[in-house]
């Protein structure tokens, strides 16, 4: 079949099962955009900023497990994607980013809107390609999707010069991708798995520490089964949230800096830590020498570089979490709940996650509890970054994997709204709540227009403290309350702003208005709703283990 490069590119996307792409046009990609008319099966969502396209593709991928696709023009279009690509990279999200580029003949000559996109994105992509011959296009696209979705997933960028889009090729679909130098190992070593089973059998104080790898490999059921069979309690990272229903009696919630006191106590006293699809991030471990000091460590991860990167591992198992856990379950004998379980429950009763209800202001935690209530814990939650994100991670009660969508590794403010839009497009049957800060929302507020234009009914909760609250909290606790550059009282009227975009706006200041507002938002199904909740200005996120410290230094628990 004779096709142009642009046609072949869209044909390849179709073959990969792409139904939605998020993008923004520009000079060098006009041929591709023109061609979109002929591919009605691919829905293009025109965002209002390329960063929004990258986060939306990311949110789509997190919610569905499919590869998210974003598209931008060369130069400034490509550089505007950067934050979004880096966000996906840090959280191992499968994504393919396609960028336009100056003609191959002009490359390296500072052509108009030329940027060294593959050079710039080298450290923030799993891999990237610059297409130099149109005949290579189908194979490169197939490789890009293969790399993005296999092994440890991640973003892959394809840079496509304009003359490649306009060129012609004899198109043949790629049947099989062969990359001799890329062969991720998915199966765990049987001997290591036997060792792990033995360690589990003999452990007196085991804990399961579950990360995002469990979500991406679809291993939640195996985690729950392992926990139920052995009565080993489960703590998750921010990325692992939803791997076990948080109402499950074996769930200890999140661990780490703002994790529950009891999850952190459990890890601190454990004699066996079973890490699955987690990477011992510093927000989890705090001071490394003090982290899980008494524990033998089993580490299951698909990426060999993560094993032994920061902590010593006694039983490394490299492989896909689902495959390894399935094999492990064949070897693990049932165990009964022990004194250790009682001890953890005692901590849970003694140091529960809690907050002081205020009489002269609205508690953010209360609002989040009400979201659980009105959604029956069934909505997808996308968050920005800041205190509101941490309150969400603490108080949103997750019931299924891929429910909680948040920028963990990079901590990208402005992530929530576009990611929520992507999630809603990926899962149209689910309600999507976006929980944002008054600072964070303003970093991609323009995507409100996208949501209105396509009638995407995301429900946006702004926890408005008129502060860059998380930074202010650190200033309060560690910098003598010198609130340098964190007061953002100068802010738009979010209700009017929502209305200006054509969305629905509400302002909520009292507790008795909360449930009603949320319920009202739940009934609006053709437009985004912005709920501007004016919360206590100086409420803090607790408990907190200050950066680089240990569980002994925990603040604000009970």
């Amino acid at each position, binding site marked *: 079949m004779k096709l142009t490069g642009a046609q072949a590119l869209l044909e390849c996307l179709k073959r990969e099962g792409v139904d939605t792409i998020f993008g923004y046009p520009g000079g060098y990609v006009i041929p591709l955009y023109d061609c979109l008319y002929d591919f009605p099966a691919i829905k293009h969502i025109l965002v209002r900023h390329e960063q929004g396209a990258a986060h939306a593709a990311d949110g789509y991928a997190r919610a569905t497990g499919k590869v998210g696709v974003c598209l931008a023009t060369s130069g400034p279009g490509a550089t505007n994607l950067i934050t979004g690509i880096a966000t996906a990279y840090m959280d191992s999200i499968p994504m393919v980013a396609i960028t336009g580029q100056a003609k191959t003949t002009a490359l390296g000559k500072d052509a108009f809107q030329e940027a060294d996109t*593959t*050079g710039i994105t*080298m*450290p923030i992509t*799993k*891999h990237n390609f*610059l297409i130099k011959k149109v005949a290579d296009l189908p194979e490169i696209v197939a490789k890009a999707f293969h*790399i993005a979705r296999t092994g440890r997933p991640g973003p892959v960028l394809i840079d496509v010069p304009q003359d490649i889009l306009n060129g012609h090729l004899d198109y043949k679909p790629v049947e099989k991708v062969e*990359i*001799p*130098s*890329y062969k991720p190992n998915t199966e765990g070593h049987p001997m290591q798995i036997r060792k792990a089973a033995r360690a589990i059998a003999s452990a007196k104080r085991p804990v399961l520490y579950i990360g995002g790898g469990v979500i991406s490999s679809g291993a939640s059921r195996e985690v729950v089964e392992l926990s139920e069979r052995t009565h080993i309690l489960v703590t998750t990272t921010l990325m692992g949230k939803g791997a076990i229903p948080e109402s499950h009696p074996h769930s200890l919630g999140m661990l780490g800096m703002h994790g529950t006191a009891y999850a952190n106590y459990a890890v601190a006293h454990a004699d066996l830590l079973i890490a699955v699809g987690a990477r011992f991030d510093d927000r989890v471990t705090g001071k490394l020498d003090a982290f899980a000091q008494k524990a033998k460590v089993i580490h299951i991860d698909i*990426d*060999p*570089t993560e094993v*032994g*990167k920061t902590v010593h591992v006694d039983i490394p198992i490299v492989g896909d979490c689902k495959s390894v856990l399935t094999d492990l379950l064949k070897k693990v004998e049932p165990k009964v709940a022990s004194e250790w379980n009682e001890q953890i429950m005692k901590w849970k009763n003694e140091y529960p996650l809690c907050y002081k209800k205020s009489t002269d202001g609205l508690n953010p935690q209360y609002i989040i509890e009400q979201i659980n209530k009105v959604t029956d814990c069934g909505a997808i939650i996308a968050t920005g970054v800041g205190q509101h994100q941490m309150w969400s991670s603490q108080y949103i009660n997750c019931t299924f994997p891929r429910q909680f969508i948040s920028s963990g590794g990079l901590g990208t403010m402005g992530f929530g709204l576009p990611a929520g839009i992507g999630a809603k497009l990926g899962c149209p049957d689910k309600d999507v709540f976006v929980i944002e800060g008054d600072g964070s929302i303003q970093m991609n507020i323009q995507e409100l227009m996208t949501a209105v234009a396509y009638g995407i009914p995301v429900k946006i909760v702004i926890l408005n403290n008129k502060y860059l609250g998380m930074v202010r909290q650190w200033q309060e606790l560690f910098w003598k309350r010198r609130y340098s550059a964190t007061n953002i009282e100068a802010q738009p009227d979010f209700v009017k702003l929502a209305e200006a975009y054509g969305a629905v706006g509400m302002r909520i200041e009292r507790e008795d208005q909360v449930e009603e507002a949320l319920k009202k938002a739940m009934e609006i199904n053709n437009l985004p709703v912005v709920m501007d909740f004016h919360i206590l200005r100086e409420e803090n996120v607790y408990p907190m283990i200050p950066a680089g410290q240990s569980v002994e230094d925990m603040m604000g628990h009970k």
Partner: protein
Amino acid sequence: MQHTMTVLVENRPGVLARVSGLFARRGFNIESLAVSSTDDPSISRMTIVVAGEDNVLEQITKQLRKLVDVAKVLDYQDIPIVQRELAMIKVNAEATKRAEIMQIADIFRAKIIDISEKTFTVEVTGSNEKVNAITNMLSPYGIIELVRTGRIAMMRGEKTP
């Protein structure tokens, strides 16, 4: 601890940038790096000398393997190898000193490959230590320019990576 490693990579533009970028980004220090094509035109071979503790080397090896364009990584620690480096040394060689310098070159089985009124250019091949040694011997005469290829290495015997 110094390690010599061989990295086989796809012979593609940008691969060197991926490898060197990885070292820079992760704070690994390259002591020397030699790159060239091989008998297989689709594969390039890098010989990299790095220093670091065992755990650092383990990370480097794994991180390199993770690069999509890297086909094979081999750390020659505890593997018998032959290794060579080539250096060219341009050294002051006034008439009165020439005999001495030629004698030194002889001892190291080095060759004088260029000559001018005031200088010799000496070519030496061997281990890093040997190159260091001749450099030390020549430095009193005044080294004007020194260029080294960096180490290349191969396993002894029939084995290949």
